[in-house]
């Protein structure tokens, strides 16, 4: 397995306080890596380190096979990125902005700019100064700039911010196409899970500068998302039955919500109904639930809070 990005014990501190600590993440070539975390978790800082905008305090970064050092800028030729929010020469037109970028990138293909603008659906505005653009248009132009040089790796920091739902869907489709048709590796950060849930292959969750989890979406779907939800008449007794009779070790009692969630995949609905009936616990309702990534994410977040 080859990796597009690997970080090893990556740490960045400002004034003695670590904003990113010991992050070791692995982004495989060709995949879409969803980088999730609340605002201020350190996503942008990590992405800036990957593009050499800031230097790590400790740890290593390997991007496209090159270990980043103080003056390794050659590898940037193969990367496209949006960091934080898209920045442009406001007085210049969209096209001019891309032209300048292409020249510094050393990329001279003639039609590339028109193609990129068409891909992000920015039509008839290429000669308009960027200062007249809306946030959504700037975001699209930022993506056009990131992809104009046909990079192998795209690092996109909250790329669908400021877009309407249709625009979001459009760009998600574009990302998916880039990944599947052109084999581009994408690292996409977001604080909104729904944005990347459907296209990501791997999810990395970051919280307070630490990588809490890194799993493939397939695994998350298979292992964690399905659970049985039931409401009963007697919660302590139901919990006792689950624990001792069914040997369940992964369930959650939320009495105030009138709910029990059973995550053990070995236990079926049928097992639960039989056990409850045997012990005289009345079941109000019972059904299988598919937890969305959001639920899973929240669960992970709360879990790590408890440990912290």
């Amino acid at each position, binding site marked *: 397995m080859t990796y597009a990005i690997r970080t090893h014990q990556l740490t960045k501190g400002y004034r003695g306080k670590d904003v990113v600590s010991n992050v070791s993440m692995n982004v495989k070539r060709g995949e879409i890596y969803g980088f999730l975390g609340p605002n201020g978790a350190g996503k942008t800082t990590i992405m800036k380190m990957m593009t050499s905008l800031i230097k790590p305090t400790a740890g290593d970064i390997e991007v496209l096979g090159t270990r980043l050092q103080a003056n390794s800028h050659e590898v940037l030729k193969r990367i496209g990125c949006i*960091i934080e929010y898209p*920045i442009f020469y406001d007085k210049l037109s969209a096209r001019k902005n891309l032209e*300048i970028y292409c020249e510094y990138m050393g990329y001279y293909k003639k039609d590339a700019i028109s193609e990129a603008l068409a891909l992000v659906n920015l039509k008839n505005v290429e000669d308009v100064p960027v200062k007249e653009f809306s946030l959504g248009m700037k975001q699209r132009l930022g993506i056009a700039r990131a992809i104009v040089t046909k990079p192998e790796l795209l690092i996109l920091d909250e790329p669908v911010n400021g877009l309407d739902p249709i625009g979001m869907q459009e760009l998600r489709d574009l990302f998916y196409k880039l990944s599947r048709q052109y084999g581009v590796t994408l690292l996409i950060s977001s604080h909104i899970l729904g944005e990347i849930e459907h296209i990501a292959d791997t999810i990395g969750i970051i919280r307070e500068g630490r990588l809490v989890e890194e799993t493939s979406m397939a695994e998350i779907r298979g292992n964690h998302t399905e659970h049985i939800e039931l409401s009963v008449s007697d919660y302590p007794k139901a919990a006792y039955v689950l624990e001792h009779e069914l040997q369940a070790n992964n369930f959650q009692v939320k009495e105030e919500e009138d709910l029990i969630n059973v995550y053990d995949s070995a236990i079926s609905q049928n097992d639960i109904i039989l056990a409850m009936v045997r012990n005289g616990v009345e079941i109000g309702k019972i059904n299988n639930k598919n937890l969305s990534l959001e639920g899973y994410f929240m669960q992970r977040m709360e879990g790590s809070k408890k440990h912290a």
Partner: protein
Amino acid sequence: MLNLMRLEMKRMNFLTIGVTFLLINAGILGILLLLGIDTEITAESIASADEIMMFIEIMAVAGFVIYASVLLSNMIIEEFKSKTITVLFTTPVSRKQLLMAKVIVISLLTFVLFLVSVYLLSTIFSLLNNVYGILWFSFPLNLLWENTVHLLVTGVAVAGMALIPLLFGMIKYSVPATITSSILIIAIVSSSINSDGTNLFSFTAVPVALGIVGFIIAYFVISKAVKKDF
């Protein structure tokens, strides 16, 4: 490096620069013509062709050092302030070379504009003086050629001096600080230090020293920006 300089120049608006150059020269020429209004007052500070020469030089220095601060603001300070520099930093160019290219372009341009301006103004004023007798003494053109070495040295010094405002401008990426500091530098070097009109600029060592300081400041500012996190 040359390629980066070419890219910088491509982004500059040479029409604006040309117009500004002409306006600055027109302004200085206007001041020179005023000298002819009351020759008695003029005689108190300017009494020879050498002194006229020095006067033209100082005016050109003032004009183009201040103009260089405008270029520094547009091409360096503004890029840092609006963060567009970070876009360039994510392209495969060395930060050091990128910033050096900007500084060298500004420095070279200041050098050229200064020299062209001094030669142009001296020639025009010399001709006008011959025809209309603006001053009571003649201002022969061969003085210009005799001073070539001095002018070249001054030109290099001015190219360095023009970079001093970077030090103040880059502290908070402030355009006003850049331009104000350039005006202050001019005010200091051109102020008279005694009654016969001698000023700091007339000792060649002063502009040369300031020029060296300017180049050192540019180097210092660049090395700092190269290491900075964005």
